[in-house]
């Protein structure tokens, strides 16, 4: 379940922050592992892990939970399961696991997404009824480092409900109230809707790089890009992760026994 404040804030702005969700010890383990992977060549990674290291851009690594169990614990973190279970009305499915490292020489990621009226993608549902929210697709970014103000995640608040085209001159570096920049600490996570126009500001901090894990979620009963070889689940590697996590990666067709034990406490009451 979500708190009333979380629901109110998400509906108002298209995002909210959960503080101190991830144990510090795990944050440090993940950070250390990320730095180690950063030194590897692409060929050093065993599938389904892979990297993308374009010049002048952030460094990206995919499917880290097949490479280190700290990332498995992260996806199954109770606070993360609480939020994902509530927003999907008890049917969360993780469909994308990716992390990046951003040094100051990497470009920021300009504003993208954002609703502008007209019809909404059926894969991007956002509904509110009887004081409850249903979101069929959302993103959850976990920071592994303290993000100073002016850096990191930025968005146009409320743009998930916008009915008009955004002006092109607005950039991710514009000041509030038009653009929000959300400082977070290591172990915090931001939940945001894909229809919230959002960005990643260039990292301007020399002491350490920005390091973020992005977990994208969908409603487990809906169809998705299941034919993509890059999308979860990876049945050939299912023995490398906990059963509950494999169930969380999979579409729901009544098989979710291990997962249900974890998410039962967070389920919301929904009408039959």
């Amino acid at each position, binding site marked *: 379940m979500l708190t009333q404040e979380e629901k*109110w*804030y998400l*509906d108002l702005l298209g995002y909210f922050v959960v503080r101190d969700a991830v144990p510090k010890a795990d944050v440090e383990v993940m950070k250390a592992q990320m730095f180690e992977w950063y030194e590897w060549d692409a060929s050093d990674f065993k599938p389904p892990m892979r990297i993308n290291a374009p010049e002048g851009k952030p460094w990206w690594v995919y499917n880290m939970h097949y490479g280190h169990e700290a990332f498995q614990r992260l996806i199954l973190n109770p606070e993360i399961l609480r939020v994902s279970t509530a927003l999907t009305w008890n049917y969360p499915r993780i469909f994308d696991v990716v992390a990046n490292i951003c040094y100051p020489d990497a470009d920021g990621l300009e504003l993208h997404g954002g609703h502008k009226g007209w019809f909404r993608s059926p894969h991007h549902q956002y509904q509110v009824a009887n004081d409850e929210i249903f979101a069929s697709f959302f993103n959850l970014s976990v920071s592994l480092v303290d993000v100073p103000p002016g850096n990191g995640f930025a968005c146009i608040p409320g743009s998930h409900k916008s009915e*008009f085209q955004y*002006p092109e001159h607005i950039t991710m570096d514009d000041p509030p109230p038009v653009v929000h920049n959300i400082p977070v600490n290591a172990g915090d996570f931001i939940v945001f809707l894909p229809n919230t126009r959002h960005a990643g500001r260039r990292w301007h901090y020399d002491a350490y790089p920005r390091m973020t894990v992005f977990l994208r979620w969908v409603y487990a009963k809906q169809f998705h890009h299941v034919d993509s070889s890059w999308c979860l689940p990876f049945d050939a590697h299912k023995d490398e992760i906990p059963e509950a996590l494999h169930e969380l990666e999979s579409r729901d067709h009544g098989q979710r026994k291990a997962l249900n034990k974890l998410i039962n406490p967070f389920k919301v009451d929904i009408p039959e």
Partner: protein
Amino acid sequence: MLIRGEDSAINLPSTLTEEEKWHYDLFGYLVLQQVVSPAEIERMLEIASGWFADPKAAPEPVNVTQDEYSGVLNNVQYGDRIFERLSVNEKVMRVVMGLMWNRPRLFNCALVLQKQRPIPEGEKERLHRDTSGFDFPDGFYNPHNDYQAGNGQIYSNYVNTAITLVDVPKNNGFMCIPGTHKSLIKLPTTLDIDNEWAPAITFELKAGDCLIFSSRLMHGAKFWKEDYPRRVVFNRYQFSFYFNENYNLPIEAHRDRISADQYELESVQRSEKGFAKRILKKLEDGEELC
């Protein structure tokens, strides 16, 4: 086949720019800069000060109420034509018309004075929505306080304008939580003005600037911290045709104190009003609004 009247609102060209529509839809307010000249502001302050100092000097039906730290001049537009020119200010009306299909009706006009005052410990600023005196239960909203967007148009049938007559530094004066005109979730009972879940903002304004906001927007006033009093003129407009929930305007007994435009602005009417047609013509001809 259904037949629509010629004044069907559906095909009205909007008097708002695309960016204004986007901004108002997203945040529930717009700021217009310098809609009134400094000379007019100076004269309005002078008149208002005189009426606050000597309420008997205020002509009927201007109603003066005040205490040590605040004051209100109700129906101020009947006191002097200079205040009426705020209600029918063309730069402001262009936006108000764009928000309610070119059919605004003024139903309330007041000059508000707010002074710095001692704040008792624990007292906090509060936010509200304009409810017309009746709070609808959660899950519903007052149809007199509607907000819709569709087909590239906005229908916001209850709009408030606040023209400041003094400079307003940040952290003073009007405050609001942007986007709350479209909130669909119940306000948490724990929410307080200094709470991280209440992202309220204030505005740095110059005398003559105008804030236009949806009455569904959660708004209020910060404690005034300046040595000079805040003075602001609020004009409230509603869609002209559907209803008349506030019966005091126009004041027939004092009709001679306002212009024909102002009388029409205050009246319930279905069709486009004369001043609205004039503004639309000016826009069409590319003439500057005044």
